[in-house]
């Protein structure tokens, strides 16, 4: 039985009389504990797809089914880590995580337990040292860590990541990728991650969903990444399976569905 199912989803944006079809007939099944990446050229509709799963954007046709129930409004069971962190700047790091904990576990956990759970999640992303800082006082990578802690603390059924490392420099990005990999290993969450970075997709994912260019983007191809876990960045980088997967994705993106500026 499928855990998360995106079922024949179409999305059309309407602005006045002008209609643009962004997504066309997207069907995707994600199993529990799976790490799935969505890759595609900029503007093809990746964020739109993630927002539909999150419930932030309604699908025009079709729907999303999570554990046999249709989901069409946002909720903490599908926590999102946004590209630009979206921390509330007037709250401290601790309070940014705590606000979610209070909302989700307000009825089921005591105050002490919620405090402990907040601290536990900050610990998972190694951010306890900055618990009393405000988002304006920490670096971009740290903000993204707190965003991840906030999402994890809601104990989501599916973790949705929208280019979570897109705005970071290469070193911070690699560091954070390793952290996310370790967390996935430890917690075994179901993850749907959007990216436009081929290496990131291959390194982190169990499956890579490649999207064709818009308008009316579709799923072009799905690639299983069979590399054993835990994966070590340096060891994996030279393994034939890694290079082959990488090659497949590159071919898809740059030969068969090359990004044409005028068509976008």
């Amino acid at each position: 039985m499928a855990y998360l199912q995106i079922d024949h989803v179409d999305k059309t944006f309407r602005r006045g009389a002008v209609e643009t079809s962004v997504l066309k007939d997207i069907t995707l099944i994600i199993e529990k504990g799976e790490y799935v990446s969505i890759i595609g050229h900029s503007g093809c509709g990746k964020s739109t797809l993630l927002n539909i799963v999150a419930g932030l954007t309604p699908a025009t046709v079709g729907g999303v089914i999570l554990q046999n129930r249709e989901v069409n409004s946002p909720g903490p069971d599908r926590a999102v880590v946004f590209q630009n962190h979206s921390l509330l700047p007037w709250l401290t790091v601790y309070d940014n995580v705590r606000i979610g904990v209070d909302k989700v576990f307000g009825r089921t956990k005591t105050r002490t337990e919620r405090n402990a759970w907040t601290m536990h999640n900050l610990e998972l992303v190694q951010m306890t040292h900055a618990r009393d800082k405000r988002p304006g006082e920490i670096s971009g990578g740290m903000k993204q860590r707190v965003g991840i802690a906030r999402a994890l603390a809601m104990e989501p059924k599916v973790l949705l990541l929208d280019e979570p490392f897109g705005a970071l420099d290469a070193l911070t990005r690699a560091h954070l990728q390793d952290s996310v990999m370790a967390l996935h290993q430890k917690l075994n969450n179901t993850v749907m991650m959007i990216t436009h970075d081929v290496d990131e997709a291959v390194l982190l994912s169990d499956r890579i969903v490649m999207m064709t260019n818009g308008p009316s983007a579709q799923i072009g191809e799905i690639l299983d990444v069979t590399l054993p876990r835990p994966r070590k960045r340096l060891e994996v980088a030279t393994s034939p399976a890694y290079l082959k997967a990488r090659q497949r994705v590159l071919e898809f993106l740059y030969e068969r569905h090359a990004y044409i500026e005028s068509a976008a």
Partner: protein
Amino acid sequence: MTMTVLKTEPASVLPPAAAAKVLPLPKPERAFFKTSVLPKLKGFATSVVPPAVVICLLLAVWEILCRKAGATLPPPSRVNADTRELIFDPFFDRGGLDKGLFWHLSASLQRVALGYAIAAVCGVALGTLVGQSMWAMRGLDPIFQVLRTVPPLAWLPLALAAFRQGHPSAIFVIFITSIWPIIINTAVGIRNIPQDYRNVSAVLRLNPIEFFYKIMVPSAAPYIFTGLRIGIGLSWLAIVAAEMLIGGVGIGFFIWDAWNSSHISEIILALIYVGIIGFLLDRIVATLANIVTRGTAYN
């Protein structure tokens, strides 16, 4: 002043550093003096000396111009001599309207406080409505845009007709003067809440009340305080004018009364007080804004 401070201090600070081995205690004191007291003194000097110099110059010019025979306004020395009693005894109360300046100012401030407080509450509420709802904006915004251009005093006859008393009418004028910038700025602040914050609150499933005080108010706070600051300034502008027409106790009436009895010096003194209090009111709201919006700065 500044020159001597700058020149002598480094010389007197150097020797104790060498003597520190023998006498460890004075060192931190010196360091404290150098890092904490000295910059403060310098800051004080740079912020106080220039205005003091300018004020002295202006007073001198004023004195020279108004000393001459036939001058219509009193020179500062006369103002000082005439208003000595008012300055040094602001608390006297000889019954009726013959009271010290303190009583007049406090009556005006009470009116402003009441009218402004009502305006702040209603303004933020209406601004939230207009900023949040497309239909409320379409319906109310044109009306607000027209009403806000009506000069404060033009409301006074209408208020007198409605309330039949001076006191509530003055409060109404304060209210109606200060509410527009509060409404408009709050609405802009609400409309400018980043979509990200709305998404976060949607994922957290915040209910409307939680959304209001956990997301909306903090996010719009800088805008709301801009409105509140403009509002307090306008209130103080309006109260003096309104009180001139209404009479009774109040700084506006005090000025009008002084004019009727040709006490020009008293008018000048009152104007100085009005200016200083207006400045203080503005600083109070600005300080409050700084405290409340400390963490709100966008990053």
